[in-house]
């Protein structure tokens, strides 16, 4: 994750140029840019459109269609709570409520300290050992409210250590 100013447009252009010859390259390009910056800022949309011979509308349309792409900065950690039926059957509705209450945010919002963005996710494929959550690329199973609090505490501490 980078704060504004920590990324450069010329690097974005380079990323696009490296990938754009792939057939149907737009999703790989967007993934790479989001990996680099942390989100896909509005001002890179015209650059992508220009490099890939697409309209801005087409690029914007793709970014807004997919839940995984963000056009605004997210918190240091993205925390996704699985809302799938298998997790519902073992208490994800309660976990969801607990998470929103204790973090004091709703889905698609970020905590004031900037450490956590909360997102819903529709199935993490961990359905025999739910409720499941994902923190960045780590998936956690059988998450009780207590375990959730521990994991969130780790997220906050990492942010403090990073200054």
């Amino acid at each position, binding site marked *: 994750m980078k704060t504004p100013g920590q990324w450069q447009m010329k690097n974005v252009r380079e990323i696009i140029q490296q990938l754009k010859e792939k057939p149907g390259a737009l999703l790989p390009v*967007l993934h790479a840019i989001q990996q680099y910056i942390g989100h896909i800022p509005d001002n890179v949309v015209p650059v992508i459109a220009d490099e890939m011979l697409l309209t801005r509308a087409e690029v914007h*349309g793709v970014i807004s269609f997919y839940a995984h792409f963000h056009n605004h900065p997210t918190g240091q950690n993205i925390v996704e709570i699985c809302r799938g039926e298998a997790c519902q059957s073992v208490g994800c509705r309660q976990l969801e409520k607990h998470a929103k209450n204790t973090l004091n945010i709703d889905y698609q919002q970020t905590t004031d300290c900037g450490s956590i963005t909360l997102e819903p996710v529709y199935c993490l494929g961990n359905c025999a050992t739910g409720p499941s959550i994902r923190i960045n690329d780590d998936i956690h199973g059988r998450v009780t409210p207590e375990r959730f609090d521990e994991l969130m505490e780790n997220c906050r501490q990492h942010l403090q250590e990073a200054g």
Partner: protein
Amino acid sequence: MSIRIFVPSDTTARSLGADQIATLIQAEALSRGIDITLVRNGSRGLLWLEPLIEIETDNGRLGFGPVTSNDVQTLFEQNFYLGQTQHTLCVGLVEQIPYLKNQQRLTFSRAGITDPLSLDDYLEHDGYTGLDNALIMTGQQIVDEVKTSGLRGRGGAAFPTGIKWQTVLDTPDEQKYIVCNADEGDSGTFADRLVMECDPFMLIEGMTIAGLAVGATQGYIYLRSEYPIAHQILTKATETAYQHGYLGSNIRGSQKHFNLEVRLGAGAYICGEETSLLDSLEGKRGLVRAKPPLPAIVGLFGKPTVVNNVLSLAAIPYILNKGGQAYADYGVGRSRGTMPIQLTGNVKYGGLVELAFGISLNKLMNDFGGGTRSGRPLKAVQVGGPLGAYLPENQWDTIIDYEAFSSEQAVLGHGGVVMFDDSVDMGDQARFAMEFCKVESCGKCTPCRIGSTRGVEVIDRIRAGERTESNWQLLEDLCETMVDGSLCAMGSMTPIPVQSVMKFFPDELRHERQE
């Protein structure tokens, strides 16, 4: 000699601490001066035992599970690495565990046994024998073998795989594609994930054979972004296959070519629908296409394309190794071979159960699943993902067979079984079905896009006791409109869970549960 200790590396094991346990085992062995080789194997699919640690002994592999990081010390103290069995977590020889022993594993025969990233392991366990056979066959011979197997699409639609391949084979074009649908979005399913995380070369082999069969030289695995571990493992396995001449040009010196790329989705359930998936692969919004033309004729980039689910392609190496008839010898009626059933939700022994078609749902949930995790009575079972029906008790004797399920107005789908105990509010579940469609609809057709929004509203009114009877009628009409008027299965199947609640649990939909 070094002692081999196995710690699974799949998502479920890791979600319960397997990585930390692996580190602790290595540190503990080092400090005690014990020579061990730590293998990160796949999962056996006995997920309630994860992390399931195994030790290689003369009699077979001995299991300990579910292990937490707090147990590592005592495991060593009780000499688990020497095959001592007194630790309370010892589950005996893993292959003697009835849950595993009573399965018929064709597709998952290697899962949990091998290191998923070891090509040598794969080759030692029958890997690439199917490809060897396919390399000396004509495309038509391969397609015929798949037809003989009776394999039907395991993604849910259950279309005969051999016939799909025949269409692509018969459609002349210089460029054709093999697309693997690895957008396993149904809640209650993880069999695709297990294939990709535990035996990735099997999927690569299956796709290569598909390419040889229909004359396609390029394949794509469209993987959902919710599976980061599968992504890492598949990417590494693909690189290894290229390095060893199992992918690329001149495969195994045959003068035949097949290239494969893993592409990541971006969090859209609809992209599991094959035409939406193709649009997404082309770099567009994942909008559903009207059919015809079929993707087999006009598919990816307008070219003839095989779109198959992970499990369908994963069944191919077995079929080409042992013959289509060997596969068809399993199963009942028109459902041939085996079905990997995933027991999930509120279940005591959740996991993967691969069996020939024909076993009853009840037997699966009780003999394998052991009932609910909570110990409370089982109330409803959703089979076939978020678009599948909620089955009440009198339907639990239904056997696992595509036709048996459709005769109950239910769907077997991708084989996910989600169990609910009596604390579930079925009205909530019906509402969620509409809400899910509202979130995930691609928006192309009106019945799905607007119908789902109205569906949530109507259900809310019914539950609030607002003109219940006329709103009930309205909901019935709405469901019918969505079924008849939607472009794809998302809109036309969303009513299935809703209608099943209306039919079997009407009181819970009529009245909001009093806390």
